[in-house]
């Protein structure tokens, strides 16, 4: 058994992990980054449209407007103090990224260029604002590359292609993690004073997703199994514009540049659902509109997809109707310059040239608003009172701060990972200076080794790939954009059956050690099953509709009874877990409370929860 000792162990090398690594190591901590992928393969690199920050380079803008949009976008489940930190820190974080060399596009004043994005407005919803700082349509790629490059410069210690599979908890505190070195199949113990999960989301629970195959929620599942609760798991975002059938993301930046959604009768249907923001309403609103149009028989060829049209003649016609300045009009070259990757995806996968034809799009499972609960310094908290689990940190998609509430705004995932990755890295560096080493228990890897041996040696009849596909289908069908008690119960029953088969009846083909991806995929399926299960079980308990959780049997938001975060925990039994769900964690409404304390009348209170209109 190899044991590695580093003060701070970071799990995952996407934006949040690399940001934490940079700031913790700059503050003097001895850091190791452990990642199942080479850092540049991380899914941060797939983010396209931009990173929101109220720089005001093109339109008047302030962090408080960004805060408001984030709270409203989250359907008021967003913790308001955290959203304020997000928006204020975003400005510094983007400037720092530029100072690290990130090649943003530029304005004619040589400053960082910004574009419109869904739900981002000026002056508390008055009009759409250009806030998304962009580098063509590969902003996430540039962030990931820049951070990795800076980590090379700062000589951060990486363990690439080491997959973390368990966490070591000693007397309620975290003493490190256990990983498998993929190239040898050997277990390694990473003994740390602090462990930081930045391991991404779990979109692979659904069949149509924008997420990478690697996004199996390993970190969240490990934390859950080792005693941390998960927060707001019922809220999973469906992005309205995935490539039909494949789910590959088509950035909201297409609509930010003027693209419109069109139904089978040639109508720009978002004008009916969101008269002001139209196609740039928040994502939950647009995804639901696509489903409702489909239900009423107005999807293209009745196949459940819509057309996303960025052709200059279409865009300019709507610009003219809206009275936009002729200087805003676009031509073929504008699209080629601003959206090169989108054009490439459509040409490659669909044989469709978006300059000449509209793109077929449908909602695609995209982003987990919920995750491992943390405070604003990325410390993991384990109850409604905010008790910290010593030595455990989380940031990025795997965490729930909660800044995204019930629905994340476009660009805010990148903001989240740089802001809270950085804050967490700095906090962790302070912690490891003071904290003592926890002695490792004897045989810390015994349980996880046994689980891997069980999978390796099982002689059942079910192939993990078949079980995974069934899980993804039931999640898509029953715990998707619209939900009812019946569909969710069906989902829970299906998942129970799949879990039973996973623990009693699987078989894998590859029994070797070196790069046994058959084995690792099977273990990942166990993680996905846990995350699917907690998603379904919190969703069925929340008897209201809010943000991405949209119930047909409880159509309205119900602040009286449900303005609270969910927490779900697991008793640690892998094959037959029992869960506890609570709705005791209050939403932070401090900005609204300040407005009340200042004596503002109700109609002037910007942060008072109210019906969302776009």
């Amino acid at each position, binding site marked *: 058994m190899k044991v590695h000792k580093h003060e701070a162990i970071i799990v995952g090398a996407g934006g949040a992990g690399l940001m934490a690594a940079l700031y913790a190591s700059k503050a003097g901590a001895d850091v190791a980054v452990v990642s199942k992928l080479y850092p540049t393969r991380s899914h941060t*690199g797939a983010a396209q449209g931009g990173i929101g920050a109220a720089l005001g380079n093109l339109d008047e803008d302030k962090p408080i407007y960004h805060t408001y949009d984030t709270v409203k976008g989250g359907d008021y489940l967003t913790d308001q103090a955290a959203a304020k930190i997000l928006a204020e820190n975003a400005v510094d974080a983007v400037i720092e990224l530029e100072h*690290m060399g990130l*090649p943003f596009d530029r304005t004619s004043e040589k400053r960082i260029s910004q574009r419109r994005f869904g739900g981002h407005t000026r002056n508390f919803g008055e009009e759409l604002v250009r806030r998304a700082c962009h580098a063509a349509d590969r902003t996430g790629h540039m962030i990931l590359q820049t951070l990795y490059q800076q980590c090379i410069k700062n000589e951060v210690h990486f363990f690439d292609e080491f997959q973390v599979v368990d966490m070591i908890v000693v007397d309620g505190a975290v003493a490190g993690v256990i990983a498998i070195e993929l190239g040898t199949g050997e277990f390694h113990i990473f003994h740390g004073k602090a462990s930081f999960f930045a391991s991404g989301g779990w979109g692979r629970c659904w069949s149509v997703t924008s997420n990478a195959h690697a996004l199996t929620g390993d970190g969240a599942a490990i934390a859950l199994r080792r005693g941390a609760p998960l927060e707001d798991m019922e809220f999973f975002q469906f992005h309205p514009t995935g490539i039909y059938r494949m789910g590959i993301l088509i950035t909201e930046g297409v609509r930010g540049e003027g693209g419109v959604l069109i139904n089978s009768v040639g109508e720009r249907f978002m004008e009916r659902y969101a008269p002001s923001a139209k196609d740039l309403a928040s994502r939950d609103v647009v995804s639901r509109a696509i489903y409702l149009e489909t239900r009423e028989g107005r999807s293209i060829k009745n196949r459940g997809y819509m057309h996303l049209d960025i052709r200059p003649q279409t865009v300019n016609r709507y610009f003219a109707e809206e009275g936009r300045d002729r200087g805003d009009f676009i031509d073929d070259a504008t699209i080629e310059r601003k959206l090169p990757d989108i054009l490439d995806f459509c040409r490659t996968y669909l044989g469709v040239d978006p300059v000449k034809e509209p793109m077929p799009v449908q909602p695609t499972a995209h982003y987990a608003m919920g995750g491992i609960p943390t405070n604003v310094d990325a410390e993991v908290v384990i109850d409604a009172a905010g008790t910290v689990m010593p030595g455990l940190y989380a940031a990025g998609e795997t965490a729930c701060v909660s800044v995204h509430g019930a629905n994340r705004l476009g660009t805010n995932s990148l903001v989240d990972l740089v802001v809270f990755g950085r804050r967490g890295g700095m906090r962790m560096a302070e912690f490891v200076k003071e904290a003592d080493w926890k002695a490792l228990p004897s045989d810390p890897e015994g349980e996880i080794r046994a689980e891997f041996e069980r999978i390796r040696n099982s002689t059942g009849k079910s192939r993990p790939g078949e079980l995974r596909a069934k899980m993804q289908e039931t999640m898509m069908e029953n715990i998707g954009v619209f939900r009812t008690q019946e569909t969710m119960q069906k989902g829970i029953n299906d998942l129970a059956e799949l879990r039973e088969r996973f623990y009693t009846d699987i078989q894998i083909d590859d029994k070797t050690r*070196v790069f046994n991806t058959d084995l690792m995929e099977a273990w990942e399926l166990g993680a996905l099953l846990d995350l699917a299960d907690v998603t379904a079980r919190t969703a069925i308990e929340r008897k209201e509709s809010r943000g991405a959780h949209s119930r047909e049997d409880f159509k309205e938001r119900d602040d009286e009874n449900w303005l609270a975060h969910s927490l779900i925990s697991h008793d640690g039994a892998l094959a037959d877990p029992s869960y506890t769900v609570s709705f005791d964690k209050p939403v932070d409404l401090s900005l609204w409370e300040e407005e009340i304390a200042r004596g503002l009348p109700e109609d002037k209170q910007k942060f008072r929860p109210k019906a969302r209109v776009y």
Partner: protein
Amino acid sequence: MDVTFRIRRQNPEVAGKEKPYWQDFVLSDVDPTDRVLEMLHRIKWEQDGSLSLRRSCAHGVCGSDAMRINGVNRLACKMLVQDVGERVQIEPILGLPVIKDLIVDMEPFFDHYKRVMPFFVNDNPAPEDGRERLQTQEDRELFDDSTKCILCACCTTSCPSFWANGHYVGPAAIVGAHRFIFDTRDQAGQERLDVLSEPDGVWRCRTIFNCTPACPRDIEVTRAIGEVKLAIRKGKTSGIIRPNEVQ
């Protein structure tokens, strides 16, 4: 349609399979617009779970699944069945040691990348107003092409000079250096040019052009290498790429 995949396999732990061998798999109900990666997954998930490959994003932005498809380097997730035909031959990329099936040792590739100082250097104090450094969009576009690189290794492992001499930094590392050498905000251009003037630097490039068509991101790799060579010869980085030549 039915499609036959002929795959170059190797497994260091299984007797009789330590040396490379070919294995055929036949898939039915294949749609011409299916991705090659999805077909490899179908083989793995339906027929033989031991087939080993790297992959992640499945849409050409993470760079994991570079392989040699019908004799040319491609990302499996960016090739459709209709692009490759009904008999497809798949091998690991060349020039890096094979570990298992389609998985090669990427460490030498990343080591070369790290040699060229692939990170932004500017030791001047940040602007006093606390805001971004300034750059014109024209200057930003000078190095736009090389910012697209995803380090998939398709270019480097298609290069005969790299096959002949694994010490050569290779096209991907030069593209990585180019991205900073021509960034007007960066200050370490000369140091990178010095690294690349060494015997295993750019002069190992014989302008064979394999790298350019191999790039899944359509980077003009050979051109970028040429611009670096010119910068070394002229001893300066300005005036090499003229904005009106940038596509």
